[in-house]
């Protein structure tokens, strides 16, 4: 009972952020150089001492064995360290796979264990935190998800592409949280930072914002303008765009277009998954027919 009270809550963001802070690395190279210098000094001292030749030979052998043992132990610790780093990277890869397979509980458990101890590599930690933000969003903990995104943006140096992905996730979580003012600001930042580079993710976030804020005409205009980019960059996730377009057509009272877009969305992605991502499309389920799936894949 006491143990239960002491254990941290599942995916507690402040705890995981603190616990996963990487420890400073052991300067093995410095030890190696120091060991060599020490050996040279000892060897010189033995060579210039007044002891007999036999004793000198014995001492030199001891130093040589010591040196070899030292090099072997450094090599061994390097080997162990590399193995641990590989195991950490493999765990991050496993979380990635679990998220792709939509096995959220397993992904959450693995993240909990991965982030509950100091990370070996800052890169692996950044990836794990990004996955944590995704899992939190899946569990509708949007505020936590935004705080993880903010931490990544504030504390971890990122390349442009990763920075864009993190900002997209943050903006989407803000929209889901109904934090529309901050979301709008985040979208403006994204537009500025993308510097004219076509981004399907940004287009999708903007379409979602327009649907949420009751601007269906703008949502459809954006969808039509960016349809090719959405298709090229999102793959099957283009279903998200079709689903939001269907909702926008419905809001504009264009049932034929809404039906066509709804069918395109549901032919690409199961309806429950789409509703989970965008609860705003729920009213469509009673008005329009999803694309029928053949018996072999139903």
């Amino acid at each position, binding site marked *: 009972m006491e143990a239960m009270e002491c254990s941290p809550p599942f995916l507690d963001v402040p705890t995981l952020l603190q616990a996963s802070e990487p420890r400073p690395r052991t300067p093995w190279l410095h030890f190696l150089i120091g060991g060599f210098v020490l*050996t040279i000094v000892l060897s010189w001292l033995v060579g210039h001492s007044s002891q007999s030749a036999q004793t000198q030979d014995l001492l030199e052998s001891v130093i040589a064995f010591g040196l*070899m043992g030292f090099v072997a132990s450094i090599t061994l610790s390097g080997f162990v360290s590399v193995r641990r780093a590989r195991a950490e990277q493999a765990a991050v890869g496993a979380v990635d796979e679990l998220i792709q397979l939509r096995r959220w509980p397993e992904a959450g458990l693995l993240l909990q264990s991965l982030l509950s101890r100091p990370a070996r590599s800052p890169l692996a930690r950044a990836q794990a935190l990004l996955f944590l933000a995704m899992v939190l969003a899946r569990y509708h903990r949007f505020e936590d998800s935004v705080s993880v995104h903010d931490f990544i943006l504030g504390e971890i140096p990122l390349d442009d592409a990763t920075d864009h992905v993190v900002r997209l996730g943050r903006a989407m979580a803000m929209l889901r949280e109904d934090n529309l003012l901050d979301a709008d600001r985040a979208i403006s930042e994204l537009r500025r930072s993308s510097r004219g580079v076509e981004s399907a993710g940004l287009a999708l976030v903007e379409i979602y914002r327009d649907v949420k804020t009751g601007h269906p005409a703008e949502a459809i205009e954006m969808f039509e303008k960016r349809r090719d980019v959405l298709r090229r960059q999102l*793959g099957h996730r283009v279903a998200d765009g079709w689903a939001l377009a269907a909702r926008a057509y419905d809001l504009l009272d264009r049932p034929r277009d809404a039906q066509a877009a709804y069918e395109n969305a549901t032919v690409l992605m199961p309806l429950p998954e789409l509703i989970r991502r965008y609860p705003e499309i729920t009213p469509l389920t009673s008005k329009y027919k999803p694309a029928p799936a*053949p018996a072999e894949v139903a």
Partner: protein
Amino acid sequence: MLPVDVAITRFRRDLTIAALVRFALLVAAMVCVFAAPLFGSHQSWMFILLVVGGIWVLLSYRSMQGTRLAADSPSLIAAGEFDRAESHIDASLRSFSLFRNAKILSLHHLAVLRHAQQRWRESALLSQAVLSQKLGNMQGLARNSLLLLADSMLRLGDLRGAFGAMTRLYRYRLSLGEALVLQLLQLDYGWRIGAWESMLQAVGGKVQMCELMPRLNAARSQALLAAAAFKTNRIELAQWLRRRAQLLAEPQEIAPGQPSLEEIFRLPG
């Protein structure tokens, strides 16, 4: 451009030289350690041991430089900067490396580059050269090489070679990404030999896997499944799969230079 046969010859020669150097340095170190107590020599062996250690550290450092050069090439290949990737790989293959893993990785990167350049024969030869080595703990590299080999063989029309490479892959536990690539290769192979029924086995699972693939691979996989469904007269399934493929890509993107696959987009319904 680095000729493949020259690269392979140089790779094999360098592996042999590196093994000899490692052996010579280890023997020299052991002689230095055991010489004084065993032979009772009064010569100072410590100095020689330090020289041997220094040479080892120097060569290790040079090997690491080569490894770093090679490590950049996958991102360059992904970004389409083939010339820069080529020069990095060339430099890495030319530099001496004490460790065989670094050389094997460089040759694998060259195979990936040739594959990206659609030079299928060269990619297949390089992959075979990589796979001919004992890969020990480099299982991920072995799997990648087999996938490259199977794809290159398929593109060359060598179905027996492709089948052999895919069969070898069954011995490994694949990552999700590798399983997705293998599924596409299996569908392509099945389509080429007309194994329609086996292509459609467990089609529900295959369709779910398609949803995780990059766009063109997803579209192509579903077009291949649609072709199999049309051939076996499962019209509803075929039309559904074809529609999914069309929502992801244009027919000419899905089946470039393959009119028999492109045909399914002209069928009625």
